[in-house]
């Protein structure tokens, strides 16, 4: 769909998801790295837990489908080559990291180029000079502050999230600017602050206090009714399952079905199964649904969950239409017939030099007349430098060698 769009990605951790999404949608993405390699190549985990510039699995996951060249943008030649390459590109992606980026003033691109820069904090705001990393930006989004339990410290994902949020947001902002370019042929400079992007996952947290509501407490997925905690996650035979106790018009009937199942399995007494669960909060307030009833219900659901495996539980939840799902890990996801038969996975992508391949979860969208696929594995360091300099920019073999001798590529 974006087959006529070339993207130059001055690689930083935050550009990687942006380039990946655009590449999956059909753009020709060329990653530009300093001769020592992009920062993304040093992100764990590593192939076989052995580090190396071509062994970062984070790099592989986010750069497959792209071509890669090296250019020292600190040199006049590096900048000139970037300008030359830039003349064929609709979009330049970059970060605020000075090592990876050509200062705007130093590289002149055509007026038709969209230049998207991902910053940690807004470059015109009071935190513009803040030094940051993924952990710092993530802390500032409000997500960890609200994730976990009040007795323990805030929780962060073991996979960096600010770079994912910022990259995906940059794909949107870049495509918006490319839409304007479709109309009038002009590019523009755009900025995506990772902090603002990451705040999306804080959902409504930022607007709670400004709407004159009390501050939120960090709580795990659970509800409280008549002083009784209704957990959101229960242990099952081989792991954990999510069970949402939802009430009200839209979702109450789903809770009703859960209770029916618990009655059928002899976990819950029929009397409690017959309660109108859509109005449970009101009944609890009136006292017709007691704390004891609710405790018995929680125990019943816990025992219902313990009787089933994740798979069994998932199948029953689908059959009955429950607000419930197994907590899946990556092994479960690999084995899931849903993801496989639906076609989430691309054709196998090579990882590392030993011929190993992985299925990539490339198809984030299924189109009626376009198929996302992964054309090539992530580039090894400088893999396409000579090819692109020769065929795209017309450099001779001797000139490419000269650039290498001088450490520019």
């Amino acid at each position: 769909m974006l087959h006529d769009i070339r993207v130059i990605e001055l690689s930083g951790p935050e550009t990687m998801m942006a380039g990946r999404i655009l590449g999956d949608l059909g753009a020709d993405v060329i990653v530009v790295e300093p001769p020592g390699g992009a920062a993304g190549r040093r992100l764990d985990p590593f192939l076989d837990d052995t580090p190396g510039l071509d062994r970062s699995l984070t790099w592989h996951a986010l750069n497959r489908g792209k071509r890669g060249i090296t250019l020292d943008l600190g040199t006049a030649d590096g900048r000139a080559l970037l300008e030359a390459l830039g003349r064929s590109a609709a979009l330049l992606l970059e970060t605020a990291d000075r090592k990876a980026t050509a200062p705007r003033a130093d590289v002149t691109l055509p007026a038709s180029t969209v230049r998207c820069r991902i910053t940690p904090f807004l470059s015109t705001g009071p935190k513009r000079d803040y030094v940051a990393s993924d952990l710092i930006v993530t802390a500032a989004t409000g997500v960890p502050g609200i994730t976990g339990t009040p007795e323990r410290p805030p929780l962060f994902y073991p996979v960096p999230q600010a770079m994912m949020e910022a990259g995906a947001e940059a794909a949107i902002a870049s495509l918006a600017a490319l839409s304007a370019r479709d109309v009038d042929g002009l590019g523009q400079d755009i900025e995506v602050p990772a902090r603002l992007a990451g705040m999306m996952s804080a959902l409504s947290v930022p607007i709670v206090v400004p709407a004159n509501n009390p501050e939120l407490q960090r709580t795990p997925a659970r509800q409280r009714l008549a002083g009784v905690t209704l957990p959101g996650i229960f242990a099952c035979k081989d792991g954990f399952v999510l069970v949402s106790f939802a009430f009200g018009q839209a979702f109450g009937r789903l809770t009703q079905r859960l209770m029916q199942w618990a009655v059928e399995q002899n976990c819950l007494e029929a009397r409690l199964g017959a309660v109108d669960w859509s109005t449970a909060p009101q009944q609890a307030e009136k006292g017709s649904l007691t704390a004891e009833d609710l405790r018995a219900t929680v125990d019943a659901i816990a025992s219902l969950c313990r009787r089933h495996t994740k798979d069994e539980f998932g199948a029953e939840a689908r059959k009955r239409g429950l607000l419930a799902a197994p907590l899946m890990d990556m092994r479960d996801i690999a084995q899931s017939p849903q993801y496989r038969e639906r076609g989430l996975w691309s054709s196998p992508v090579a990882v590392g030099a030993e011929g190993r391949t992985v299925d990539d979860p490339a198809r984030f969208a299924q189109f009626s007349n376009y198929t996302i696929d992964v054309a090539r594995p992530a580039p090894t360091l400088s893999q396409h430098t000579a090819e692109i300099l020769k065929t795209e920019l017309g450099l001779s073999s001797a000139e490419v060698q000269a650039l290498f001798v001088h450490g520019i590529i």
Partner: protein
Amino acid sequence: MKGPLDGLRVLDMGWVMVGPVTGRYLADLGADVVKLESSRRVDPLRTLGPFKDGKPGLERSISYHNLNAGKRSLTVDIKDPRGREAILRLVEWADVLIESFSPGVLDDLDLAYPVLKARNPALIVASTSLLGQTGPHARGTSGVGTMGASMSGASLLLGWPGHPPCGTYGPWTDAIAPRFIVPSILAALHRRRATGEGCQIDVAQAEAGIQFLSPAWYQYAANGTVMERRGHAGSPLRAPHGIFRCAGQDRWIALDASDDAAWQALRTLVGGPLLDATFDTLIGRLRGRDDLEGAISAWTASREADQLERSLQAAGVPAHVVSSSNDLAHDPELLEAHYRRIDDPVVGEAIVEGPRYRLGRTPERATRRGPRIGEHTQEILRDLCGYDAAAIDELKAAGVLV
């Protein structure tokens, strides 16, 4: 100058979060977005907080305003044949249709993609649901984003080793899925400008979540290792790197001083036990991690988090308060540049969020309030569907416009 999507027409049939967020992105960029609602089956987002001044009410949800800012609202009973015909007239009007019904619902209403395409071949239909429209588990799986988070691998990754997982904060995939739907729509629009082609786009919210965890997927697929929840905020390959308790109730600062320059800066600032020669090297800091973190915690524990953020940043140490809802409300960056004031006839003045990007040339559209239920029904039926006053009265009398 106009917004990038000025003139684009969008029919937003989504509810709760994923569809509406997708529609809001398009509205912010200049599109005319019509949101289909029902006063009989109210968008659950209208019943979810936060409410202005904590007072519940279907027109008081600030979350609703936040995700539906700038849209127009139409109430039509889509199950009534006359309501269905009104929707099909909007389908002819629209460039993009967003829907998040449970898979199968549109088939039952005889509004599946082939029907829509027959009325408008250039239409771009974005369908989204927890597991998508296809696959053995797609039908029968509907619900909320906490389920998407569970099935994407995210929920298990949050918690403490040896303890049950805590799960994500809220319906996590509701925030992630729009980041894949919107680029797909914008790419399809780019293609349509050249070829006139429409399409259907089907995004599974759980699959969107997997994208944000792709390093964990690759770790399993290549190494056979299943990533586990870690609890500790920082990376085991960096030190000091994590969060530290500050003075006050539940106050924390995130700090990343693993790289040499930041470490030297932190060391100079804190002094004391950090000057110990054990901590000269990264390997020393990793091996002495517990002592190192203990020493930093002892230093931060008596200090106020905001003050620490400023003094650490001034010294060149990457640091930020682990922001709470209260911190976000008072954060100088967000107050200056992110929050937008809306004025609504029901709730009065309120704060919603602005766009998460800055476009340098095309103007930002002023953030407007969300609509009241069915606020624009008449004008939409008249101006977009082409009904005259008598026809609208007839629909109203027949109870179709609810």
